[in-house]
């Protein structure tokens, strides 16, 4: 499980960074999205990995904290997802505006000669 998650974070992050370096705006936005997925998984993994334990207290007392998952990283991920979603949408609008104004999808408006 740890290995699968680590690989997922690594592959998503690596692909994201590579795409960030590309010169087209479409590649840029996909790269940013992949990176944000990998970051979200990373935040999640920072709350340790209790398998099958909910972050919600059971009725009738808290009991042993070891039985529960840490709820804070989960709420952090939720906030990060929402904010990432909004900023990606905003970026998409700017991308469309740049496409309309410059007539190309190069990040600098036009490719260098």
């Amino acid at each position: 499980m740890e290995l699968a998650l680590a690989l997922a974070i690594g592959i998503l992050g690596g692909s994201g960074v590579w795409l960030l370096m590309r010169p087209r705006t479409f590649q840029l936005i996909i790269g940013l999205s992949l990176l944000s997925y990998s970051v979200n998984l990373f935040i999640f993994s920072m709350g340790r990995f209790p398998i099958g334990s909910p972050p919600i207290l059971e009725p009738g007392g808290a009991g042993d904290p070891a039985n529960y998952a840490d709820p804070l990283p989960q709420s952090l991920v939720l906030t990060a997802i929402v904010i990432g979603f909004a900023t990606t949408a905003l970026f998409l609008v700017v991308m469309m505006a740049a496409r309309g104004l410059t007539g190309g999808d190069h990040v600098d408006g036009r490719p260098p000669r």
Partner: protein
Amino acid sequence: MTGWLEHLMIVPVALPLIVGAIMVALDEQRYRLKAAMGILSILVMLGTSITLAVQAHAGGAVSLGVYPLGNWPTAFGIVLMLDRLSALLLILSSVLGLAALLYALPRWQRMGAHFHALLQFQLMGLNGAFLTGDLFNLFVFFEVLLAASYGMALHGSGVARVKAGLHYISVNLAASLLFLIGVSMIYGVAGTLNMADLAARIPNMPAENRPLLEAGAAILGIAFLAKAAMWPLGFWLTPTYAAASPPSAAIFSMMSKVGVYAVMRLVLLLFGAESGASAGFGGTWLMVGGIATILFGAVTVLATQDLPRLAGASVFISSGTLLAAVGAGQVSVTGGALFYLTSSALAIGAFFLLIELIERGREVGADVLAVTLEAFGDGDEEEEEDEEIGAPIPATMAVLGACFLCCAILLAGLPPLSGFIAKFAMLSGILNPHGLGEGPALVAPSGWGLLIALILSGFATIVAMARAGIRNLWAIADRTVPRVGAVEIAPVLMLLFICIGMTVAAGPTMRYMQAAAVSLHTPQEYVRQVMEDGP
């Protein structure tokens, strides 16, 4: 703090949020109502911030206001915290917000959609970032102010702005991801994101966890430094600031200070003298990076031809100076740096506003304006321009020239204005590490480096500003005298008069800054107050 005063701390965050949300719902045609609401909101914010600063200054050595939202115990709930530094920055952001809004009244508010709402959200983000007491809410407020700044950067549209905005947004989105990685690593190691709680836990942290904590802090630092535009993370800054509309650029001069604030707060709180094995972490990097940024800024200032880029380059010098001063880690240097922060934010804001007025007499500026006017279908209002800018001021060139001179003196740090006092205070702190006339004057090599860089950058700024002034104010034989409205020059004069006021009242101002620096350098007292003042 007792009674209703206790709730004053939430005003700088809640008020712009509410006002901005109402503005979004209002129709774009009702810009006069929106402007009135905006001015009122910022004036209330300014009054609140001044009251908070007076309260913070009236208290003891570390005077701290703690506002637990939702009344949870401080270590678990969300808290706002106020000390002298946050109060100072709250005042500064309201002042710059007011200047930007006043400047936008004649023209810029109608050059694009939702100017007033964006300005309010921008101020909300800034104020929140200065007040918040935990790292995750710092992230949230950073995102609020960045999202608003994306809109502000693109205000007025046009190819140059959209192109620069695209780069600006992508760099900042990537930096925000680094921010998240850093925050989650720190949480993974320390188990808390509350700044005071973190500062309390770091000294007792087991040695095997320290590398991970320091890596997390370093990644977090990279995110802040990208926003503060430290070399080599700040190449996005000049094109974005130069392309932005003047009111947006004026408020952006505050935005790069947020990165500096975050670095200053966290380095001194988490890695101060009492933080055990991690003490002084990052100080050398900040010093070296700061000096590199100053030198890069000095070269850029000399290399630029046009005024907006010159202003952008002086942001580099300002950021670099502040970062290096934080890296020095001495109380007296930090005090001088806070004075410098205030003075340079005001001066750069005024300079960005002034530039458009000076360039209005030249054809280049007129072109850009014509394009934006056309894009928003305001082209037929051309003949109403007299009415649009309000009553033109007399002796335009003399006033513009005097303002330019003031900006040049402030940015270069020449006597008699506040820029000089700030630099003098920092240099005196570097040369007398144990206080004036006390202890052996052993200056670290990095101190000499900063001293040389500061003086060189001042010299470069003077050369560049003199050249730009001659070219733009004297050398154009056939220039038309720009028509400048009283409402447009008023914010520039306001910002410059505050700088002059800081010079005249340098004693009390510097005492405030030094007290703020002392409280920054005594983190254990800060931690104690946060943990005890909670419910």
